[in-house]
């Protein structure tokens, strides 16, 4: 589903964000990206949805090398990828329902489909009945659930999560992880960048560890360190 081949990405002249990174993630796998701040985790995720392009190497997503994907094809790529962020990136002037429906509106889904799918996904993330709330009326954990619902509502092949539990307390974070695990079990490939040792150690999934842009460990059923 995802394959990196000798990918190098630098910012400016001197900052090397990723160096000669290669790995392969089959469909349906759950992968943790770990490493200290600035080790290249976020850069890696940005390469996968074409927010950035590497200087060298190939990035394969769903059978396509996306490095030289023409700009007109980028939206199509992104419709196959869900994104979850540490700061949720919810739109504060829209309700829970509207935030999720927004992800379907902008890719032209018809109204009746939206009316049917949004409640279903809200039910999945455990927020049924809170459609009419605004983000500021929700707890941090609930906001992250909305953002996951938005990332998942279009049934993407891949879910990219950048520190999704970084702003949450441990218990709430665990709830989010259970949710991501459930989504993973539906067949969605999940890549999650995290600092959270406890979560990585509990879940026992594949771990790819980065240090100053270099992959130093790639371990099945791994732990944080």
């Amino acid at each position, binding site marked *: 589903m995802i394959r990196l081949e000798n990918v190098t990405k630098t910012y400016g002249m001197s900052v090397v964000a990723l160096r000669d990174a290669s790995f392969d993630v089959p469909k349906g796998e759950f992968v943790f990206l770990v490493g200290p701040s600035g080790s290249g985790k976020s850069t890696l995720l940005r390469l996968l*949805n074409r927010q950035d392009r590497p200087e060298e190497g190939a990035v394969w997503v769903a059978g396509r090398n996306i490095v030289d994907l023409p700009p007109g094809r980028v*939206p199509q*790529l992104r*419709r196959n990828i869900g*994104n979850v962020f540490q700061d949720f990136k919810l*739109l504060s002037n829209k309700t829970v329902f509207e935030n999720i429906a*927004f992800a379907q509106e*902008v*890719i032209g889904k018809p109204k009746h489909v939206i009316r049917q799918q949004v409640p279903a996904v809200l039910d999945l993330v455990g927020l049924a009945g809170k459609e009419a709330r605004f983000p500021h009326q929700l707890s941090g954990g609930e906001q992250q659930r909305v953002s996951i619902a938005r990332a998942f509502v*279009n049934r993407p092949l891949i879910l990219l999560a950048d520190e999704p539990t970084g702003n949450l307390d441990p218990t709430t974070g665990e709830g989010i992880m259970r949710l991501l695990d459930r989504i993973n079990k539906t067949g969605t490939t999940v890549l999650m960048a995290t600092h959270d040792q406890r979560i990585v150690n509990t879940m026992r999934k594949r771990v790819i560890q980065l240090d100053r842009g270099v992959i130093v460990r790639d371990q099945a059923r791994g732990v944080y360190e």
Partner: protein
Amino acid sequence: MLSRLGYTLRETWASFRRNMTLTVAAIITSAVSLLIFGLTMLMQRGFDNLLVQWEGDVEMIVYVNAGASDEQRAEITNALSAQTQLVEDYSYCPAECSLAEAHTLLAGDPGTLELLDASNIPTQYKVVPTDATDVDTLRQLRDSLSGLPNVQSIVLADEQLDVIAKLKGFVGLYTLILSITLLFAAILLIWNTIRTAMFARRREIEVMKLVGATDWFIRVPFMLEGLIQGFIGGVIACGGLWLINNRWTAGVSDFPPNSGFAALVVNDGYTGVVMLIIVGIGMVAGAIGSGIAASRFLDV
């Protein structure tokens, strides 16, 4: 498709309200620039009306009294034909032709126009000289012709035409420069309005891009906003143009006769054409300005 249209209109309206001050500034600037542009076109037209009798290199006009007999006219024709050295060509403009011309020249003076008909309007010989710069020879020709019976008067172009032509060129050039400068300012303002609107919604745009919205989907509401700004500016300019043109036409008809301004009015369908043009320019300029502004913001 219908939900998309609804989405576009909703977004456009929301953005309009959010940036009221900038939007109003952009609309006023575009209105003023389009108004000046429209006025330039009307002025040019007014001057063209003033010069209508001098079309086709005519440098001298011989006015003949309405009561002139055929023999008297033949005498004038012979005199003109004899001057092969001086006169390259000449044409006769009978009563109907002169009357049609008068309708343009005296458009702003309906009182005088009413008194004219085919029985009393002077007819004209329009003379194209071989060398228009040789004013002295033309004056000699005028003096020799003015003695003929029933010749009412003879007018030379260099005494009337040149002033008007120079004025037309001067006024036309500088109002055109002014209006283009202002139009440019209007585009910049619309551009800035859209940039501000997009900056206020950069989070939303980022999310849109990440869930796979196409650039056009994001751009269209902003372009529509610019287009509407240009349209409103154009409509306001049309209102101003109509008002000014009306006041001017009414004012000219109160001028004393023979003040020379009677032809400087536009009261035919041309005003409507100008209005359509300025609304069109406003819409295109608005859409292009905002389209460029939007494109620069979409490199997420």
